[in-house]
């Protein structure tokens, strides 16, 4: 039988438990090969390329005022958008799980639109909506508020792109949450507001942090939905990914890689910190 070889060879591979199922070597081999070719080797190039400029060269690229401003806008804008999404995502998830209303299925399905709609399409749509003659931008500019071609436009696009993350992370947690604790708290005399603050919200905090982290991570590197509405004015509404593209167009590969590496490392550190915060909250319960 053709599986006998797999069984016979398994005791030698002490780093895994023996199994009668065939195909471990083949599938893991292909997985590692494909992962290396598509992901790991190219990412290694990003880790190594900036240093052809030397340490001082890398530092001088990423401390250029224009680069610093773009990094600040990408990270700051992503943080603001993530916080907006945390607040409204919590509210939307609560409504969609706890209440019944007409067209609820439709509204719920629409939440995933930012996942499914190509970012360039979202970009030109938002730009047309929020331009000074647009459906939304027109009335707002009457109030003296300019959105398109300002940093506010960047934030609007980042809110759009991050919207599904918080809602989709919270929904299953809310749906699985038993009403017992809420009922008990009510029997013991807690007001509805106290119940929400002391019983419901603490149970949601870990998932809320996870969803907000995902929204932030997505927004930091976002490009397609932002560049059309941003206007891309240097030192004003220019995002970091666009600067990478500009450096590449000037054939400054190492400079582009330096900005890319700094973005990647900074976002990993922030994601790591938020994940630690999330596990601290999850462990406390």
């Amino acid at each position, binding site marked *: 039988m053709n*599986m006998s070889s797999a069984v016979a060879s398994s005791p030698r591979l002490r*780093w*895994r*438990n023996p*199994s*009668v*199922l*065939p195909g*471990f070597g083949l*599938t*893991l081999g292909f997985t590692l090969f494909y*992962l290396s070719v*598509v*992901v*790991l080797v*190219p990412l290694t190039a*990003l880790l190594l390329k900036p240093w052809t400029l030397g340490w001082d060269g890398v530092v001088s690229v990423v401390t250029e005022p224009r680069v610093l401003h773009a990094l600040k806008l990408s990270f700051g804008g992503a943080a603001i958008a993530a916080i907006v999404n945390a607040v*409204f995502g919590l*509210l939307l998830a609560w*409504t969609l*799980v*706890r*209440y019944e*209303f007409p067209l609820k299925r439709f*509204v719920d*399905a*629409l*939440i995933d*639109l*930012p*996942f*499914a*709609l*190509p*970012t*360039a*399409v979202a970009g030109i749509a938002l730009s047309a*909506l929020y331009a000074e003659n*647009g*459906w*939304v931008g027109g009335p707002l500019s009457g109030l003296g508020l300019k959105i398109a071609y300002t940093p506010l436009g960047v934030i609007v696009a980042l809110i759009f792109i991050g919207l599904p993350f918080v809602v989709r992370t919270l929904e299953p947690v809310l*749906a699985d949450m038993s009403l017992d604790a*809420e*009922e008990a708290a009510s*029997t013991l005399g807690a007001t509805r507001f106290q*119940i929400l603050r002391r019983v419901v919200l603490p149970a949601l905090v870990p998932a809320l942090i996870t969803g907000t982290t995902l929204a932030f*991570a997505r927004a930091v*590197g*976002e*490009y*397609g939905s932002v560049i*059309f509405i941003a206007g891309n004015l240097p030192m004003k509404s220019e995002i970091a990914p*666009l600067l990478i593209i500009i450096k*590449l167009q000037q*054939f400054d*590969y190492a400079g582009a*890689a330096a900005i890319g590496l700094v*973005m*990647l490392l900074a976002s*990993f550190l922030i994601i790591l910190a938020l994940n630690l915060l999330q596990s601290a909250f999850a462990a406390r319960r």
Partner: protein
Amino acid sequence: MRRPTEDSFFTRAALIAVTVGYVGLFLLLPLLIVFFSALEQGISAAFAALKDADAQYAIRLTLITAAIAVPLNAIFGICAAWAVAKYDFRGKSILTALIDLPFSVSPVISGLIYVLVFGMQGWLGPWLRDHDIKIVFALPGIVLATMFVTFPFVARELIPLMSDQGRDEEEAAVTLGASGFQMFLRVTLPNIKWGLLYGVLLCNARAMGEFGAVSVVSGHIRGLTDTMPLHVEVLYNDYQYVAAFAVASLLALLAIVTLILKSLLEWRYADEIAAVHRH
């Protein structure tokens, strides 16, 4: 009297109004304006934009790219899920984390890394030039960048699903004398087919719509390396708004079809796709 776990009528009405208003403003309006702008000068102007030779080429290039990238990532996803979900081995959590890695990399960086490997000043640039092989600013680069950004979709769908299903059925099949191939075709595949379809659906939507990563490696050569999303950008920057929105509305239709199929799968086959999507 209302139950203690129920919010007051006023709270409910207010929250539903905010939800519907927020979704309408931030999600429905952007979708509607795409179609509205495409049809601004009538349906024939929109169709003319789609029949344009460059647009036709862009559509073809997008379909070719997805036709290569999606099946490769699906095969990878099945292999990775098989290895991770059905066996116990050391380093499994590191492997799973690495598979998810592309999701936390900016699309622009996803394109950049291939320029660093295959571009003129890249590792393999001079060698490729000497052998007259084009990767960056050509189809292979576009496909590679698309593969990177859609890399985790199928795998991360199948890993939790196949872990939940365990290995009893496959072990029974093998014990009863099935070959590995028979076991996969008769036992595993029927168990995972809806989850696989779900992953492929999301993978395809992203593959056809990817903009940032492809924009970096494509070089924007009109009628040669412009995919549909890139063609939208070219037209929009050329102030050809109707044409831009006409091509964009095709992509928006793709998004709508994806969302409908996704909702159908979540509703009809809830138990057969990964637990995270059941709600």
